[in-house]
């Protein structure tokens, strides 16, 4: 198994989602990717639905500094403290958990632990998790700052990358969605438009 890629640490958690801070500025995992955190013996899986970079102190916004600089890169070089004053965080929607050897595509009994490490799931794990697409139902039925269509399509695009036959995976997912969204054809259409290759 490939080495686990640690991407951040949980700083806020609830039953339905958790927020993690990235160790490196701007290094949040892509929208829709599958991440996990541990709370032994349970492993929680989440889909990244939101990422943001802002100053540490709320209410104090960064100011423009590049007037006399030639490149953007130069701004960071001339003010190295910036890397410490800014932070990137991402939110992940909990979509399932693993207990022992079994995967469950529904919410775990307890939320994630603060300071739990957050890892980006490896292709094998993504493949295993996406064997069942029942988690799509959670994505459809949550109210998030980002539109559901965008999140679902981003998630499916991400997951499809680990499959050799991307088309087959997307068609299967599309069919699953067509059942979940049987009464909302417009929503289904919007998602399908976004995931077709």
């Amino acid at each position: 198994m490939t080495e686990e890629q640690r991407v951040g640490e949980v700083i806020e958690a609830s039953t339905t989602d958790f927020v993690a801070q990235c160790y490196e500025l701007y290094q949040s995992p892509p929208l829709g990717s599958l991440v996990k955190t541990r709370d032994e013996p349970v492993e929680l899986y989440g889909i990244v639905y939101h990422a943001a970079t802002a100053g540490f102190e709320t209410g104090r916004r960064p100011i423009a500094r590049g007037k006399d600089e030639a490149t953007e890169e130069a701004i960071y070089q001339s003010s190295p403290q910036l890397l410490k004053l800014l932070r990137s965080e991402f939110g992940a929607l909990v979509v399932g958990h693993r207990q022992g050897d079994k995967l469950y595509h529904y919410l775990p009994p307890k939320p994630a632990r603060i300071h739990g490490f957050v890892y980006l799931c490896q292709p094998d794990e993504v493949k295993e998790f996406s064997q069942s697409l029942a988690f799509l139902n959670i994505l459809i039925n949550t109210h998030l700052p980002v539109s559901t269509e965008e999140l679902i399509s981003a998630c499916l695009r991400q997951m499809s990358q680990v499959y050799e036959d991307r088309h087959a995976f997307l068609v299967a997912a599309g069919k699953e969605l067509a059942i979940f969204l049987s009464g909302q054809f417009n929503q289904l259409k919007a998602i399908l438009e976004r995931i077709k290759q």
Partner: protein
Amino acid sequence: MSEHLGIVVSGSLSKGVEVRLDSSASVEDMAGGRYVTIEGKKQRFFGMITDVNLEVIDPKLTLTPPDMADPFIAEVLDGTSTYGTLHILPMLTIGGEATGLIEGPQPVKTVPSHFSTVNLASDSDIELVFGKEDKGRFWIGNPLDMETKICLNLTELVKRSNGIFGKSGTGKTFLTRILLIGMLQKSQAVNLIFDMHNEYGWAGTREGAPPVKALKQLFPSSVAVFALDEENSRRRGVSTDFVVRIGYDEIEPEDMVLLRQTLNLTEPAVEAVYQMRRKFGKNWLQRTLDIKDAEETRDLLKDMNIHESTFQNLQRGLATIRRLPFIEPHAPVNAVISILEHLDRGMNVVLEFGRYRDVTSYVLVANMLARRIYAQYQERMEKAMGEDTAKPTPLVITIEEAHKFLNPEVASNTIFGTIAREMRKYNVTLLVIDQRPSGIDGEVMSQLGTKITCLLDNERDIDSVLAGASGKSELKTVLSKLESKQQTLIFGHAVPMPVVVRTREYGSAESYRDFAPGQETDIGKRAEKDIEELWE
């Protein structure tokens, strides 16, 4: 195509069940009339597809159709948002319960439970329902898109009167020929065929191809060809066994009743016939025609209370009959006796009409002969019942243009009406062939045991054929969708459920071998033996 079709989603016993198609099964692969099995929890059902529908899960789809040109969207929506449904009429239960196993397929009394799986019927399922080709069963054709043989139980078939219907040119004649061959081989009944168009005796015509062999060529030892028109038969190269001549004295007033329309007789003229018969006895026809227009005639008519114009009308009609070339003052041999002799020997008799295809000849001869044969059979049967001796061989009389004999006006008068209604008891049944079943008396139609129908497209004809059949509206869809050739719907007494059949092939050398196995070689062997004996 996959065997698994879908699952039952709704339905009723009276209307049949709705089946949602799986996304793997395409609506375009389905066909009305095809057989399916439904795996219920306790029983297996056997049914027929009667309708195929397209459905959408969200009505919005029909209002703003998606871009189906995009293969991805089309693939996703197929079977999920858009899907097909089948309407299936469960007909029988097979297997499952103990009684089902012992007694074979049973008519359905309920519907399968929700979400029972539906599969295409396999060859063995169909064999279970329709039986294998054996001593009493005859392979009539194959189900649509399958190679299984569908067999008719001919022993059962000939116990009732049956009907073959279909528009002109849909293969009625071929079907009849096949069925006759079947009866000849497997039913232990003898056939008397009134062959109006000379199709069954020696050779039959075929559209755009050389003629096909008919009964006598295939079964020379068990078929006798009787001819009404010897000259025509000779010209066609048919070896006839008997030439039928009819004497004046053989025509009875009842025969005239049937001819009222074709001879344009008035009602009083028909009445007058009976009076003439009473007055002149057996030779009434000759005597009536001999009456001259004289003073005594008027007195005679006055005596009998017949109006003069009525008499003239009658004379004109009788003159038409006299002009028929096969009618003679005195027939040399009694045709009825000869036919009966042949039938008694187990020979099947085909009566060819030659050139006399007009309705008058056909109706007159068929009715006359059939009536006498009827009388004989009735007598023998009653005797057999009384003395507990052997009953006469079952007889099947085949008539074409049946509506001429069995229309509501004359059905009660003709012998065929009587046979259709009650002759079953006397071991005589009818095989009715017609292209306008709506012209046949409803009472007769209702008595037909098995109805075999090719394509019909007249609403009234369809209604009259399907009258009283269970699942009529579903069968109607199937019937109107039959192909115009070689396809036929069979339902009634001899089949456990309605069945659409692609009639087996007829006309190639191979098919002849199938129909008459051993016959040709028999002839060959016999010929060889004869030659050997000749040289000895």
